[in-house]
């Protein structure tokens, strides 16, 4: 598998009246071609911020993000370097992500025109792309308001495809859609990733969708990734107490299973994160050292990585049970 995206120790800070808020506080991850990496976590944990930093919408304060061999820089007013056109994003809000005053065809064709196609060829290819995302070819002559949310999201995807992406960051692409469109768009994304052999970071708080479509999952808590592993590892044998609590929040179809874990307290304010392990004030398994030493990422024998003092580098994951 070819690695196309490497994030190492990425830090993103927001400026709040002179105070620095670390929305993303040092994240490492890699993305391979043909892979969907699910990025999950509570609201406000920094998922979207990380996604925006990856494509260059936000600036990283430290660390680096390397896409296909070159470092991603923040978008400026100048033209984005051609090379990075292959790194695209699909936005959450299907209403704000399309220009209401321009025809669908023109918006999709933009990516091709900027890439050097003639207008005529670009419009023709835009029709092919629309077909690919399951919309009629004659949609190029229509305006965004003539489409439903799910259709608009597919149009946004077609627009991203126009730049021939090798990596896409999909920032909650299905959260704003109704349930039937969610499944369609999710399936479409899976098929496209396969067809184009691109990598996708799929940001979502909908764990059941992430489980269905992802190859690997990264779990974020308060600006840090606490565990990365395959879907099977994360779901069946979580090795971080937070992952365990998060997974237990998914209702089971048969009604069995345990009740969701109720974690004590709220997510701490990222302006003053807790000392040591960021999760320790809410962790039912916290030990004295957790409040002092920040757990480093350790790779376990089954290949996953986790940041928890309960786990030891290179050994079998210690199974976590709480509540």
């Amino acid at each position, binding site marked *: 598998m070819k690695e196309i995206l490497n994030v190492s120790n990425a830090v993103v800070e927001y400026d709040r009246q002179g105070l620095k808020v670390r929305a993303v506080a040092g994240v490492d991850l890699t993305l391979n071609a043909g892979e969907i990496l699910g990025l999950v976590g509570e609201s406000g944990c920094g998922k979207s911020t990380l996604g925006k930093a990856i494509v260059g919408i936000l600036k990283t304060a430290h660390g680096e993000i390397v896409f296909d061999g070159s470092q991603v820089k923040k978008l400026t007013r100048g033209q*984005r370097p051609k090379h990075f056109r292959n790194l*695209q*994003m699909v936005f959450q809000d299907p209403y704000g*992500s399309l220009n209401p*005053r321009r025809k669908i065809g023109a918006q999709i064709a*933009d990516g091709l025109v900027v890439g050097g196609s003639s207008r005529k060829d670009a419009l023709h290819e835009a029709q092919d792309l629309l077909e690919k995302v399951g919309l009629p070819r004659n949609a190029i002559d229509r305006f965004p308001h003539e489409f439903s949310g799910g259709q608009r999201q597919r149009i946004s995807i077609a627009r991203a495809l126009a730049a021939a992406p090798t990596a896409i960051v999909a920032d909650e692409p299905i959260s704003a859609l109704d349930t039937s469109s969610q499944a369609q768009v999710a399936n479409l994304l899976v098929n496209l990733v396969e067809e184009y052999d691109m990598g996708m970071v799929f940001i979502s708080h909908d764990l059941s969708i992430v489980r269905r479509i992802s190859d690997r999952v990264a779990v974020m808590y308060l600006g840090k990734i606490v565990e990365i592993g395959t879907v099977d590892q994360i779901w069946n044998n979580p090795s971080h107490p937070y992952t365990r609590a998060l997974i237990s929040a998914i209702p089971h179809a048969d009604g069995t299973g345990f009740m969701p874990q109720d974690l004590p307290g709220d997510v701490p304010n990222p302006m003053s994160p807790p000392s040591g392990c960021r999760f320790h004030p809410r962790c039912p398994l916290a030990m004295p050292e957790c409040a002092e030493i920040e757990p480093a990422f350790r790779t376990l024998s089954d290949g996953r990585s986790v940041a928890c003092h309960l786990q030891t580098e290179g050994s079998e994951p210690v199974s976590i049970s709480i509540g």
Partner: protein
Amino acid sequence: MTMVTKKMKKSKNSNSIWRQPLAVVGIGIIVIWTLLAIFAPWIAPYNPNAQDAAKFLAPSAAHWMGTDELNRDILSRVIFGARISLPYSLLLVALSATLGSIVGAISGYAGGKIDSFLMRVTDVFFAFPGIVLAMAVAAALGPQIRNAVIAITIVAWPVYARLVRGLILNAKQNDYVTASSLLGSSSLRTLIVDLRPNLSGPVFVLAALEVGNALLLLSGLSFLGLGAQPPASEWGSMVSLGAENFDRWWVGLFPGLAILTAVLAFTFIGDALRDAMDPRTAKALRD
């Protein structure tokens, strides 16, 4: 086949403006004024500058709108006045809208220090009372209609700059603008392709409303002797003359009505243009 459908769509689109009764009225009035202006020498019953010993004749069969203090035929002067007032106010609006939009677009899109600087400059222009600044500029350049146009443009552009800056600030936060730069569009392309469509509607509406203002400012300068020079007939200066001779109602009324109809017509057209240019209302108009 595709050519045919395209053509049909196009005519449908431009039809939408004809479906609005007020727009039709507005366009009708402007067309009439334009024809009057073009064919003034053939339509006007008298030479607009012909004088004689009598003065202030009330409207009659010979002089439909009466005569002024030099016994010039007011109807003829109103018709000839269209040759000054209409083209110059359109020119004024076009100039100030262009200048203001460019400044506003740069300011809103660039942001930061460039934005602060340009907006402070705009504030300075706003702080002056319009007519006073226009007078100062026109007086400095010399009394001439061309200089009056320059003076009024200098007074009128900040409104557009503010409007456009606000629209750009609002529009550039949209995800589609980000998406466009992610696709590799240059700033200029983003400005023209993605942001400009958000501007034309509001700018057109403002411009249509401003035609009236421009017309009045131009008349004001003419009245003060800084615009159209006598004996040229200009609606605003004719109204001023009417104000001096309040007991002769016809002196001010008819040029006043001319201004009223022209301003109203431009407003109707502006409204209709806005509705026609917004794809959401345009569709409703088409169906």
